[in-house]
């Protein structure tokens, strides 16, 4: 298939891997831990597992699966808000598919639907707007979720609703922004990361300059990467190359999609509709300043939080759940005390077990189970896991 198979060519992968192996061996000499590279974006996590990329990399490289799965970092209280909105009579609550299964403190949207709430899966906020036009006597709420990747489409939809005078449509805005979160991770005292794979689709919107502080102030290489397996390997090679040459700059591996300055039209739409919140709660990471957006006063009519006075009760993460440490790369998913026991994809405790982009679900679904079992057994024996 054109534009796909070229980026999955095993021969090219072999060439890249040979270079990665050589560079990793050289860089790892004298280190007492593996080189740690964080992929910030959940899309990369998915690709890494789907194509078995971890199984191809040398032991000297460890991939840390970052906070870039918007479904995973959604706090439980916000899911409760979604359910509360869906339970309002006359509301059609619309959402992307993979948010349906995220557990709230009492139930998920999937459970709410089974109890009679009108919850519908859509592929685009425009589908939700269409539903609103088709059902003028109903209130249609769209669960707006995601980083800068999905922000422009929801902003554009609100602008279109305004243009068309649609009044029975609103957003429950849970959009989050990646930069403050990466900064929070970099400021974490436990941090040992050596470099980053930057999020390709976010960068397509915001451009590459926003990451400069990572390279300049924190001295970590960052390579904006595409989502095909060769993209990921290529970007890992580029990070290693920088480390080898003792450079730390922002580089763009995904130049076929990501323009240096981002997308001006998209940024303009975001700026018109949204403004930064003072802080936003992240599952596993806690409250991070300026990490979320809300709707500007001019669009209050389209803001479900104001229209339906959403309660937004803060629910603490389960104590046993170590999602935060996994998100920061302090522990691997299978080092969490509840991984595979109390927390499985059937009954997820932590959000990382919910979406297929979540690091824990990805390990559980695609991971090298033999390796995980052996490591867990070792840790139980040495007492590092109880």
């Amino acid at each position, binding site marked *: 298939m054109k534009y796909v198979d070229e980026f999955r060519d095993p021969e090219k992968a072999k060439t890249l891997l040979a270079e990665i192996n050589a560079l990793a061996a050289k860089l790892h000499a004298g280190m007492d831990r593996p080189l740690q590279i964080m992929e910030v974006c959940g899309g990369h996590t*998915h690709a890494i597992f*789907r194509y*078995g990329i971890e*199984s191809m990399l040398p032991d000297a490289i460890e991939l840390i699966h970052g906070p870039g799965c918007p479904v995973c970092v959604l706090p439980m209280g916000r899911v409760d808000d979604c359910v509360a909105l869906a339970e309002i009579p006359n509301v059609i609550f619309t959402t992307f598919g993979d948010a*349906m299964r995220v557990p709230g403190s009492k139930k998920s949207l999937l459970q709410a639907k089974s109890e009679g709430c009108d919850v519908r899966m859509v*592929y685009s906020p425009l589908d939700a707007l269409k539903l609103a036009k088709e059902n003028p006597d109903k209130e249609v709420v769209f669960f707006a979720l995601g980083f800068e990747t999905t922000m422009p489409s929801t902003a554009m939809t609100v602008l279109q609703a305004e243009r068309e005078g649609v009044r029975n449509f609103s957003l429950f805005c849970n959009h989050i922004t990646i930069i403050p979160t990466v900064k929070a991770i970099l400021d974490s005292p436990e941090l040992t990361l050596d470099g980053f794979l930057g999020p390709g689709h976010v960068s397509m919107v915001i451009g590459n300059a926003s990451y400069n502080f990572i390279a300049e102030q924190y001295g970590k290489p960052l390579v904006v990467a595409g989502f095909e397996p060769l993209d990921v390997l290529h970007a890992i090679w580029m990070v290693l190359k920088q480390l080898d040459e003792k450079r730390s700059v922002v580089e763009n591996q995904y130049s076929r999609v990501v323009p240096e300055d981002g997308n001006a039209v998209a940024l303009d739409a975001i700026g018109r509709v949204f403004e930064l919140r003072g802080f936003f709660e992240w599952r596993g990471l806690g409250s991070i300043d300026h990490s979320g957006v809300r709707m500007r006063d001019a669009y209050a009519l389209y803001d479900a939080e104001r229209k339906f006075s959403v309660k937004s009760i803060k629910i603490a993460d389960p104590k046993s759940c170590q999602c935060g440490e996994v998100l920061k790369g302090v522990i691997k998913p299978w080092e969490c005390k509840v991984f595979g026991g109390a927390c499985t994809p059937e009954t997820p405790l932590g959000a990382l077990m919910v979406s*297929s982009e979540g690091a824990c679900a990805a390990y559980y679904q695609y991971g*090298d189970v033999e390796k995980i079992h052996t490591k867990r057994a070792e840790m139980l024996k040495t007492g590092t896991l109880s």
Partner: protein
Amino acid sequence: MNVVQLHKTPRRMGHVNVPKVTMAHGGGGKAMRDLIDDVFISAFDNETLATMEDQARFRLADLAAYGDRLAMTTDSYVIHPLKFPGGDIGKLAVCGTVNDLAVGGAVPLYLSCAVIIEEGIEVELLREIARSMARTAREAGVMFVTGDTKVVDRGACDKLFINTTGIGVIREGINLGADRVKLGDAFLVNGLLGDHGAAILNARGDMKLATPLESDCAALHGLIADLLAAAPGTRFIRDATRGGIATVLNEVADASQIGVEIHEDKTPLRDEVRGFCEILGLDPLYLANEGKLVTAVPAAQADAALAAMRNHALGREAAIIGHATDGRPGRVVMHTVFGGRRIVDMLVGEQLPRIC
């Protein structure tokens, strides 16, 4: 056919004169009789059904001519939309049950047809679906011998639910089972995977992709007969419906306590299905099929099995996709096109499209 004929006097067939089904058609009176006659009896057109007795009757001696064991299966069909590219709920209800018999090595012979109808459905649509069932049954060489009709209030079911139960006979010497796969056995599929799942998702209309995707809905008993003749040592056959081949492979790996290794580059997929999955973030290994099977045969018979399937119209794209190994029992591992390897696990729920 060998069904006991009760009496041969033809009776006058009823006819429905209104465009839509009402609760009256489920009341047990003349209106119900008219609906059954008009829609089902006239389409299925056989004397056993026309007698309207409460049960079908079979001569044991006639059944015994086909083999030494009876096989029986049942399946309920609930699908939205009722008609889709490549088939409809009626065709599905025949092929699905015929296949469930055939993958056990049985010759499919008789079907029941029980329908639950939501009031308000167009009678003409019912007729069309019943004709589709009759046509598919005729082609598959099976006969409808008993049935039931219920009409429920609007909202109590989604337009039309169909249940079919099938009876077939297994020939002496055929012993297929998910627990019989041995180390080294080859796994084969009979063609391009995921067509049905992708076609149905697309037909639901959310994406409105203009593609020629069609359901692969087909009765596989003929192909299976050819396969068993060419590879008499065949260990196991299962049709890869809901959950796709990933689910079947996990079931067999667990039941036989073997490892299964498959190769992504040997897994036959249509470009349209690949593209569809790329757009929605779905994994084609989990997409439903309605005319595809997974089989395990001893390595020495793999080529013969492959050739037999490729000689059949429903197996032109058949392929050997992997082998039973001494890897971790119960685990399915895929070697990716890219050169990596990953676990192919059972799905927890249904696949949901990813956000971005």
